[in-house]
């Protein structure tokens, strides 16, 4: 019998499968990559071949241009591809559009690398699928019992209440350009808000892409100034969405007395929100919170739990208490600050 370590092993470039000779989410260029989802720290340009969902391939092409890899291998959820005798299947991870867990099977062993995931409902992507396995490799971005994301509707409610309360101010929502932004727009629509939402230029392409995949985002308009006096007030009472990095720019100064809102799981901790300068923190995350992480381990019933990027020590402690065999992988190169 093969040992799980012989099938997947942590390297400096990422998780490596020696018999299949491929990497999962490699952080530097490799010959063959399996990519879980389109976030920049997981999906990099320059690999020889990329196996990913159709949506993720499209996202990578939109971000990096058509030549991001020599060979594209789009796969549907549930479709199995054999790579050098190793079966690779992508199943939904519920993180962003096209996000997948990678099911790696060989010699009767099944290992699942979660990539990034969440368990709660997301109207912009397929829901996480749980599958029993020998090894479950989980992310641990919010692997501390203080992280319990509240209900999405409540957070969107906070935003819309504030928009009504401060009709002369613009609400500037900082959200990661891939996934978070579209999910928020969709949630705002579900809450009954149907006015135009203004978006930063960096988000246009990805919003278009989501639409092409059938996600209805309602009326969007560019967050640029029209000419002439008083243009600043064009955005009074409006919702503007931009990447958090744009908040420090001149870009943010064009809005009337903006209310900075950041949408992120980190907003749960007041000091973080304050440090970010968020006046209205929105606790919205595309990652599993503590309860989702521990529930998922129970759902997947792995013989072994491997923990990758994030806060490993608390999850390790939990595993010990729960009698789950676990080990930290200490993979490097993945950022968690964007969520």
């Amino acid at each position, binding site marked *: 019998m093969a040992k799980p370590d012989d099938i997947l092993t942590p390297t400096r470039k990422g998780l490596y499968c020696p018999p299949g000779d491929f990497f999962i989410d490699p952080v530097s260029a490799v010959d063959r990559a399996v990519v879980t989802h389109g976030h920049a720290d997981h999906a990099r340009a320059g690999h020889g071949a990329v196996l990913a969902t159709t949506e993720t391939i499209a996202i990578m092409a939109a971000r990096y241009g058509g030549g991001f890899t020599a060979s594209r291998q789009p796969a549907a959820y549930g479709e199995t591809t054999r790579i050098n005798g190793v079966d690779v299947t992508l199943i939904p991870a519920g993180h962003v559009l096209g996000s997948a867990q990678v099911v790696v099977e060989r010699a009767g062993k099944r290992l699942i690398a979660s990539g990034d995931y969440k368990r709660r409902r997301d109207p912009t992507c397929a829901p996480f699928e749980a599958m029993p396995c020998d090894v479950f490799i989980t992310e641990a971005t919010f692997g*501390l*019992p*203080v*992280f*319990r994301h*509240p209900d999405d509707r409540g957070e969107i409610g906070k935003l819309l209440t504030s928009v009504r*309360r*401060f009709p002369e101010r613009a609400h500037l929502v900082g959200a990661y350009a891939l996934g978070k932004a579209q999910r928020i727009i969709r949630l705002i629509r579900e809450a009954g808000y149907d006015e135009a939402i203004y978006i930063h230029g960096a988000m246009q392409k990805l919003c278009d892409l989501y639409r092409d995949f059938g996600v209805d985002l309602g009326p969007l308009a560019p967050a640029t100034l029209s000419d002439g006096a008083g243009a600043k007030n064009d955005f009074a009472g409006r919702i503007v969405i931009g990447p958090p990095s744009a908040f420090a720019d001149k870009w943010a100064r064009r809005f009337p*007395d903006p209310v900075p809102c950041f949408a992120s799981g980190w907003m*749960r*901790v*007041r*000091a973080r*929100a*304050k*440090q970010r300068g*968020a*006046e*209205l*923190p929105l606790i919205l995350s595309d990652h599993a919170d503590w309860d989702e992480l521990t529930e998922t381990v129970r759902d997947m019933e792995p013989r072994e739990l491997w923990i990758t990027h994030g*806060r490993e*020590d*608390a999850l390790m*402690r*939990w595993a010990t*208490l729960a009698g789950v065999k676990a080990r930290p992988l200490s993979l490097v190169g993945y950022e968690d600050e964007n969520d």
Partner: protein
Amino acid sequence: MKDFAALLERLVLTPSRNAKIRLLAEYFAATPDPDRGYALAAITRDLDIRSVKPAMLRSLVHERIDAELFEISYDYVGDLAETISLIWPARPGPNRPPALGEVIETLNAAARADGPRLMAGWLDAMDAGERWALIKLVTGGLRIGVSARLAKTALAEFGGAPVTDIEEMWHALAIPYTELFAWLEGRGEKPDATSPGYFRPVMLACPLEEKDLDALDLCAVAIEWKWDGIRVQATSEAGVRRLYSRNGDDIGAAFPDVIEALDFEGVIDGELLVYDPDATPFAVRPFSELQKRLNRKSVDRKLLQSCPAFVRAYDALSLDGEDLRASPFSERRRRLEVFASRRPLARIDLSPTLDFEDKDALAAARAAPPDDAIEGVMLKRLASSYVPGRPKGEWWKWKREPFLIDAVLMYAQRGHGKRSSFYSDYTFGVWTDEGALTPVGKAYFGFTDEELKRIDKFVRENTTDRFGPVRQVVAEPGDGLVFEVAFEGLNASPRHKSGVAMRFPRINRIRWDKPPGEADRLEALKRLLQG
């Protein structure tokens, strides 16, 4: 409790003063009695609530959470109340979150032994935001960047009433302020402010600028020394004796020696100072001696003897039942002199008025005053009536040291050598027009070892963030620590975010008494640059 928690959350993160006022006013409008009154008292820190020890909360949480998981989390979050509020595993069940008033009334009526059971029940019924508010409330750690003055301004806005009316009646009101809200909503009579001993909002001076000096007519102003103590209002009416700070905080409990001497009928405005009990002639001691007596709930006999306090009077707001505030300064001063000459009082004397031939003589006296306890001169228009706030063109202060500013401590860093276990290097800032603090300098000397220990303690207890050896401390208009910083000069510096760089800055004095909101503004510093 839910609305109160939401209000606090929003206030903590809102930098703009106007937006804070708006949030408060809306809360008052939307929240019924008695909750809004209790919330108001919590914010102005007038609330009396049975306190709960952090150790008790820790043991509650340890009953439900693995100690190691808790420690890992606490280490990450850095704040005990926040960690507990976030980590608390609520038990699903028929829990009803309590109203704010219910929490306060229940806790105050309960036996101490019932505390843990009550707290656990409430924490179970609440969400994380409410739990945070509850824990901050009962552990006395409510720091939300709102001063009592700002809360009163919001009340004024909410009820369309002058804020001075509210300040005047404040000490006559009882928590939860139902009478006040009824009046503000037009449903009730104006509460009787004039219960004996009420606080009169104080009149403040503007810093004297070059152009003011040019325009000044020496014959139209009264000139006094600017004493280096703290501004107080000593009140004695119908047997009620009070000593108020300039914010209206009653500090009488720490100054029984002064209270005992308020054997008159009236309201005196003056400087609280301490004198040397062994010196003849009478000698005022420097501010650092007075500091020993500040921020105390009570005082022991030893300190009363070694640091006796007195009031150096410079104004009378009321005497023998007659309100003098509408009278010109010259008349108030005359009445004050008559009052002082009638019968000497043990702990009250008169701040002398000064005469100068011309402005040069005035400038020379200001630069070299005859006493260490003098920090400059005060100029008051003889015709000025007593107007609360900081009216323009009435009173001026002209400090002795040309380069002295009040700045707010923002970051502290560990020192080197024998000070390596203390946070002894300080970065301080002043307020920008947008109401934010911008750092303007760094200093690591100018204080005694004793003071260093106290600042170090402040830093540790008020840390809001850490970056390596540096701690960020609480620095909000209503909360934080003010340094009086002395420096030799100011250079324009595009390298610094503030645009200015100080030469040889040092801590001149630690203003434990001063709310950061009253520290200097960047604008004032930039004016120095031009001058």
